[in-house]
């Protein structure tokens, strides 16, 4: 578990330090306490496995955490459930907190494999051709795949990026250096 990467982002210093020490003592993982510039300078090549954030940081960076909701844990002061995020109550006793964190490891790994928002190489190729104005038939010919496969890539693109229109996809491709 030593390569497991945990980020803690909270305005409450004592919570952050406490959580880090639980990770070190009980899991042998060194968690990183992030400062307010962390998100701005975020490097996508090193995606952490779990984020622990307080509600203020979450709301301030919703655009960052929503796509990563599968691996984001909201730090709360009570047991009010959240619709979108898993929660960890900072007022629980140590053994409860350790038990709850344990469940995050298994779920976090599973979810990451299944619903990661990053695009596959093939989807990126399809996106590049969509942005170049190609129709499905041309994309299929160019990539040597069936039209049904093109359609399924397009469906995945739309559900991962939540962008439906061709111009929306084109602008997304431009923003991410795909075209």
């Amino acid at each position, binding site marked *: 578990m030593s390569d497991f990467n945990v980020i803690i982002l909270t305005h409450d210093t004592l919570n952050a330090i406490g959580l880090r020490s639980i990770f070190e003592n009980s899991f042998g993982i060194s968690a990183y306490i992030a400062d307010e510039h962390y998100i701005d300078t975020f490097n996508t090549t090193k995606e952490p496995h779990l984020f622990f954030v307080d509600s203020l940081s979450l709301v301030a960076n919703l655009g960052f955490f929503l796509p990563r909701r599968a691996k984001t844990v909201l730090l709360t002061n009570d047991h009010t459930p959240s619709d979108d995020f898993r929660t960890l109550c900072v007022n629980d006793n140590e053994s409860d907190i350790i038990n709850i964190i344990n469940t995050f490891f298994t779920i976090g790994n599973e979810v990451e494999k299944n619903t990661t928002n990053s695009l596959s190489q093939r989807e990126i190729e399809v996106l590049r051709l969509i942005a170049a104005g190609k129709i499905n038939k041309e994309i299929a010919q160019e990539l040597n795949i069936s039209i049904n496969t093109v359609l399924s890539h397009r469906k995945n693109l739309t559900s991962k990026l939540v962008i439906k229109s061709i111009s929306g996809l084109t602008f997304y491709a431009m*923003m991410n250096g795909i075209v």
Partner: protein
Amino acid sequence: MTLINKDTKLCDIILQEPSTITVLDRFGISLGVGDARISDACHEHDIDVNFFTTILNTYIEENYFPQTALLAFSASKIIEYLAKTNEYYEKNVIPNIERHFAFLINKTPSQNSNLVLMQQFFAEVKTELLQRIDDDRNKWFPTIALNEMKNIGKMPYPVKDTEDFNDPIEEKIDDLINMLIMHLKGEYDHNLGYAVITAIFSLKKDIKQNNRIRNRILMPISQALSCKL
């Protein structure tokens, strides 16, 4: 919200659904409504009560389909309402979003090119919306008005239900909102960013609600009128 009728107070409608302020405005009713009921206000402004409540209910209530009431309306009244809606987009909403975007970009570090691309995407949405407004003004609305003239005395005409269809403009605005929420990167002025996104959200809401009036009221009347000829 329960359906609106002639005895509903205007202030209650606005309090429950503030976006109706713009709808009332298109009928010449401005803020400072006192405790007037719909019937009073319609009497004062010489508005058909049935028409007024149908427009408001269609605007507010997604599941409201105004089939039976349709026959009584003159197409020109609906055209007049939608033309005012278009004018509101053209003169207020679009320039407003553009202004917010310009402020935001102005305050954003130049290395953040993401926002500039989002602004270009909005420019594309704008072109498409203005094109539709132009088509309404110069093609669709005059054709309906002409057909209505030719059909005078032959009313009521048979009106068929139409189905709502996906509006490409609505779809693009949704995409733009999702891009701002999910894919924005780098530094930006948070306050101005919020102003941009709420302005786009309210445009999206208004277009969606007025599309119901286009699709559920004007479209079936327009089809019925052209069949008659």
